[in-house]
């Protein structure tokens, strides 16, 4: 127990020197790192033939308020796709976390990826963990300045390129790069690149696990999503500690039989699992909020178990229920649970809805609104006029002309005024005045008819909108 005098309000960061490790989780993480970096850094440079904007495959054009994603053009009115996407992302997170814990944190989160990258830079320049610890302790001399300085230089370089790449999603990449270095780029580009360079460097190069521990909320609300059956990176306390605790493999404690006879568990207390942990925790203390579930301690422990000839899996993905159980089984995904299935159903439904929505998007949007002020107009000869506003949005990348007709009433009843050509520019919209005059007798029996808007480039696909007609004083 700590006494009052020992309590400190603030503490310096305890530096973490991560030892590199080999194994299937490390390979998995490296694979994802390579894939994610390739996609992120290369994507803005992929060219795509485009009629209405720069030839870039992915372009978030904020000036013209359009997102280009390959052949998909997203307009502001498609913003609900984003809410669907966010729903899918959130549900996927809950679904995965309920099954296998913080997989996002350990393998996919950009904080993890960039921290991993920066640790790799440190490892390449400053050497393995003991070398880095020695460097940390030694006074500042030429060697230390060079090594530490160059690692931070490369971190800054990666951070800077991260910022450039991010900005390149919002402007034509080759042009942006040229403008950026010749001082002609927009203020927003410089602000974005500088901000991202600083934040990437600070978050991945300096703060590292502190982002997860103190800033990111996800590590704190993970406990809500974990269940008894959730697979988490766990230390098998029963097997590792035995009845007499863990013990170093000293003379007489080398073979498994000898250890079991003396009550010692399989953990040889080598500390490898702690040394490889990017957040610097000891998994043997149980599930902790600092654990980002990256599986590197599993790799480390398995390597040690192999070398001392003990079975693998002293640290493994396992569920709390199985670890506690008197008759433990092989760890397996326990997916037949109401919550997991519920998330899966919600996920599939929303993915289906989004795919359907994007798949059935149209090249033009047409809305016909009846003018209700006044509801109808009686003309000099007694015939009845209703007025409408026809709103056409051209969602293609080319200029388009349209034909506007009516169905269900005589074609001559429609009057578009003096407007001769209904031309809508690429990605723009047009509001058109339309008058419909019907003789008194016809007007009384007409309650609705249809507007037909036909793009001249696709004459066989008229867009039909049913509208109401008010023929007189409620007769």
């Amino acid at each position, binding site marked *: *127990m*700590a006494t009052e005098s020992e*309590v*400190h*309000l*603030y*503490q*310096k*960061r305890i530096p973490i020197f991560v030892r590199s490790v080999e194994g299937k989780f490390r390979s998995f993480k490296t694979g994802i790192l390579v894939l994610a970096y390739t996609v992120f850094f290369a994507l803005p440079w992929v060219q795509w033939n485009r009629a209405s904007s720069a030839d870039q495959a992915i372009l978030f054009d904020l000036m013209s308020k359009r997102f280009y994603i390959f052949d998909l053009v997203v307009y502001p009115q498609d913003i609900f796709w984003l809410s669907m996407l966010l729903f899918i992302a959130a549900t996927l997170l809950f679904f995965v976390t309920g099954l296998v814990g913080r997989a996002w944190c350990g393998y996919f989160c950009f904080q993890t990826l960039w921290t991993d990258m920066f640790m790799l830079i440190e490892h390449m320049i400053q050497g393995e963990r003991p070398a880095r610890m020695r460097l940390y302790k030694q006074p500042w001399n030429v060697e230390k300045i060079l090594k530490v300085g160059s690692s931070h230089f490369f971190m800054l370089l990666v951070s800077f390129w991260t910022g450039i790449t991010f900005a390149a999603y919002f402007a034509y990449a080759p042009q942006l790069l040229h403008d950026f270095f010749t001082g002609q780029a927009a203020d927003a580009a410089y602000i974005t690149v500088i901000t991202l360079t600083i934040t990437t460097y600070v978050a991945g190069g300096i*703060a590292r696990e*502190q982002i997860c521990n*103190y800033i990111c909320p996800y590590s704190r609300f993970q406990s809500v999503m974990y269940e008894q059956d959730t697979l988490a990176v766990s230390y098998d306390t029963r097997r590792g500690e035995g009845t007499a605790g863990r013990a170093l493999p000293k003379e007489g404690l080398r073979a498994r039989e000898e250890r079991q006879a003396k009550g010692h568990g399989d953990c040889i207390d080598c500390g490898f699992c702690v040394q490889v942990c990017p957040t610097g925790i000891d998994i043997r*203390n*149980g*599930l*902790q*909020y600092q654990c980002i579930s990256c599986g590197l301690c599993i790799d480390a422990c398995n390597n040690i178990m192999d070398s001392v000839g003990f079975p693998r899996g002293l640290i493994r993905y396992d569920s709390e229920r199985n670890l506690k159980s008197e008759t433990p089984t092989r760890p397996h995904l326990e997916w037949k649970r109401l919550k997991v299935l519920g998330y899966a159903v919600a996920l599939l439904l929303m993915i289906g809805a989004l795919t359907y929505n994007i798949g059935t998007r149209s090249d033009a949007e047409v809305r016909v609104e009846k*003018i*209700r*002020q*006044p509801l109808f*107009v*009686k*003309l*000099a*000869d*007694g015939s009845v*006029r209703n*007025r409408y*506003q026809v709103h056409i949005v051209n969602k293609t990348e080319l200029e388009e002309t349209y034909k506007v007709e009516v169905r269900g009433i005589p074609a001559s009843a429609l*009057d578009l*005024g*003096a*407007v*001769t*050509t*209904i*031309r809508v520019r690429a990605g723009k919209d*047009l*509001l*058109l*005045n339309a*008058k419909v005059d019907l003789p008194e007798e016809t007007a009384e029996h007409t309650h609705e008819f249809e507007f037909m808007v036909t793009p001249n480039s696709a004459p066989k696909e008229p867009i039909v909108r049913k509208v109401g007609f008010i023929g007189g*004083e409620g007769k």
Partner: protein
Amino acid sequence: MGQQTTKNTTGHVWDDDLQELTNPLPRWWLWTFYLTVIFSVIYWIMYPAWPIGKSYTKGVEGVNTIKYTARTVDGKEVQKETHWNMRSKLMAETNEAEARQKQWFDKVAATPYEDVAKDAELMQFVNSAGKTLFSDNCAPCHMSGGQGKVTFSPNLTDDSWIFGGTYEKIHQTLTGGRTGFMPPFKDMLKEEQITQLANYVLSLSGEKVDTAAAAAGAELFKNPGVGCFVCHGPDAKGNQDMGSANLTDKIWLWANVPAQQDAAGKVEEVKKVITGGLSRGVMPAWGGRLKPEQIKLLTVYVHDSLGGGK
């Protein structure tokens, strides 16, 4: 987690098991806090911050000033410069928006009426800008949709025009205003004659009337001693140059015939107009109040957007 939480606590316990941990905060967190304090000091030096008596600290000159053009009540433009505030920011942004809008106003002003109406994009601007101008200036009498009000103001969405529905006539009406007038006939004609005239006028619009009375009314209409035809014309179709109404169409302005269900009521309505005449119907002149380009745009709006133009 369980093992650690029982350690470093303040020792205080609430609600049986609620304890307060004494985990140390990271040192950088403290520095971040100091940084925010330094930031606030810089902020209040640069921007208006502290009240001093009836004044306040103004901040650094130039960092937070906004320039904008304001308009006084009598229409004069005044250059203003003030410190940043929501109102001045709004004014500056309104200036920018007006500059953008001006391009369109200029385009409408420079284009003949017929060509504006042909151009779907220009008409889109006429629709939106016209609606605003109309709502601000015209809607109090003509109603927000231009539908007017029987016995009060003409409907601008129908095809009947008292003073003419061409671009030029509408422009003239807007600029110079109009005054409707019809003399009262209560002293000149007998009650019975007025009834006969009312029947005739209603018959012109195809209403069911007392045919005998209508025939008598027709005679009175053409009678030089009564003189209806002088203004309304021998065919009763009115004269747009002087603003006399077309009595043969089915549109009513001053007599609220559409609101009456039975023939007697309709006759009463028309009689009211003939008896009392009209000195209402004043359309004010907008020439001095609206800019020429606004009047031009409103002309197209009334003619094409409201749709009654001829």
